[in-house]
């Protein structure tokens, strides 16, 4: 369980998180959403213990996360960052194997079991055929899958993903989130930062919206995924309807202008604004 109590965090003079409190219990599947610059990534970095907080507390199972040795955190929390750097020509398999580092004894090499877990993780993310290729020779989307496989190979109870599927095509996005759902049903807690509202609504049971470094709304997906709430947070016109198959709410953005009419020019459409949220 992760408990975040009134944290402030940021870089140099700039405060990014301004008093965030959250409770994340075991086996949740949470989407963290919000406009650009709202503090999503900083929140993820703070709650995984890599960005120091200026005040407040982050507790992992009741103990401040900073009191855990780095390796102990890595055995419990895996993180897929927004962007990965690959400075050297490692094979994708070597990159995935790095997920086994927290379990290594000093001086020891990765064991056969580590290699099997890494292979298994690559199979689950569907990148087995890339195993021997250099990580610098694969596409951006494939590199994201490699990083996801690394997090899976880390075999942690908590999986944190920061826009981990942003470069993937629609089918791969679904494939990855199906995999995360499977991990969740097997007991993992999944926390993902997303820009894709509909993907979040499809897979996450709880959504947390950030704006300007604060939590604006936090609740069950069907309770918070509403026209007026989304429109206000993103300051643009958004309508919600039911997904034709699953029935989960899905968002539709309303353009301010629409290319309608024979002239081909842009013309203001007459869509009316959503009514103000009541309460």
């Amino acid at each position, binding site marked *: 369980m992760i408990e975040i109590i009134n944290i402030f965090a940021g870089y140099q003079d700039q405060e990014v998180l301004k008093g965030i409190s959250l409770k994340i219990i075991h086996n949740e599947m949470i989407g963290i959403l919000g406009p650009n610059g709202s503090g999503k990534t900083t929140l993820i970095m703070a709650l995984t213990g890599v960005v120091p907080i200026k005040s407040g507390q982050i507790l992992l199972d009741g103990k401040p996360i900073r009191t855990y040795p780095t390796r102990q955190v890595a055995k419990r929390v895996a993180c897929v960052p927004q962007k990965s750097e690959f400075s050297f020509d*490692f094979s994708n398999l070597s990159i995935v194997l790095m997920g086994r580092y927290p379990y290594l004894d000093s001086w020891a090499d990765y064991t056969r079991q580590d290699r099997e877990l890494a292979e298994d993780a690559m199979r689950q993310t569907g990148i087995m055929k890339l195993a021997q290729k250099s990580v610098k020779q694969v596409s951006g989307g494939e590199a994201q899958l490699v990083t996801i496989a690394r997090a899976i190979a880390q075999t942690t109870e908590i999986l944190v993903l920061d826009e981990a599927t942003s470069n993937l095509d629609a089918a791969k996005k679904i494939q990855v989130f199906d995999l995360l759902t499977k991990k969740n049903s097997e007991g993992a807690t999944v926390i993902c930062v997303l820009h894709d509202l509909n993907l979040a609504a499809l897979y996450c049971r709880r959504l947390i919206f950030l704006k300007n470094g604060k939590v604006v709304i936090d609740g069950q997906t069907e309770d918070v995924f509403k026209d007026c709430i989304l429109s206000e947070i993103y300051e643009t016109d958004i309508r919600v309807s039911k997904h034709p198959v699953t029935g989960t709410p899905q968002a539709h953005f309303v353009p301010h202008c629409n290319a309608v009419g024979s002239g081909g020019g842009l013309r203001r459409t007459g869509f009316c604004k959503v009514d103000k949220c009541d309460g």
Partner: protein
Amino acid sequence: MENISGTGLEHNYQHEKRRFAASTIILMAAAVTSVILACSIGRIEIPFSVMLKSLASGFGLIHDETLDPIHRAIIFDIRLSRVCLSAMVGLALAVSGAAFQGILRNPLADPFTIGVSAGGAFGAALIIFLGLGSKTSLGLGIIPLAALVGALSALAAVITLARVDGILRRDTMVLAGIVVATFLGALVSLLKSLDEESVASIVFWVMGSFQGRGWSHAIFAFPYLILGFILVVTYSREIDLMSLGDFPARHLGVDTNRARAMVLIGASLLTAAAVSVSGVIGFVGLVAPHLVRMTIGPNHSRLFILSGLLGMIVMIWSDVAARIILPEGEELPVGVITALIGGPFFCVLLKGAKTGTGFD
């Protein structure tokens, strides 16, 4: 189907492991052969069999009354000590180059560009300039000690310059290194122009040389070399992980600040050990790691071992060339040889490599 690909990976892993073992054995054999052959080359002709006997008796393996004590002294005390010292320096420079490149993720990082070599050269030049070169401590001149202090101070200066808000920035570090190296280089030139008499000995420090060095130098440098080598090899896996970036490495459980500090200290000790006994020798720290990385990949524990061995071999033969290349019995600074061979070779390496240097 999946099982087949699985065993394919396992097979591949075993294959890579064997390849590394084979490369290590070949380079080790080449290094030992180089040491023996390099002992047989010199201005005074000594038959190969006498040379072998001298070596054996020097190590106390045989007692041969017929052996000329002068031959024995030339082989064991002069040539072998110098060859061993050059091997040590080659290893130190290659490994520290690989470590600097790995931890700073910069293909141009090496003892020279990071300013550590220049610090050592300045320390030595200052002592020569002050006329203290003949003073002794620990059984040899004070110069190696001054070079060691200079090298470590330069590193401290570079780290201080590169720290922004308490965070060491790796890109700033190379810039700071170049600034410090250039500044210290200018100071060395100043010392040279102020004192015409010491120009020659300062030049030999700036370009690197093993002339007149022997066992006492090797013994002086040995502890720093061993300590530095153990430090960087201990953290080789952490260097692998830190190539993903600082945050990802920490997410995987690496104590990045500690690892970076240890590797920088280790690599600087290696550099200081080398510079303190030989002066500034360029290009070995660049060429050897790049060549190995292109051949066996970026895995740092393997990289350190193989580039160390390669550095040994390159330095042994560079020093042989420095000893005998001029006809009149004059010696060249060995740094001239490594730069003359290393510069063009490095260009070919960069141009010819299909997979690049292993860096972005």
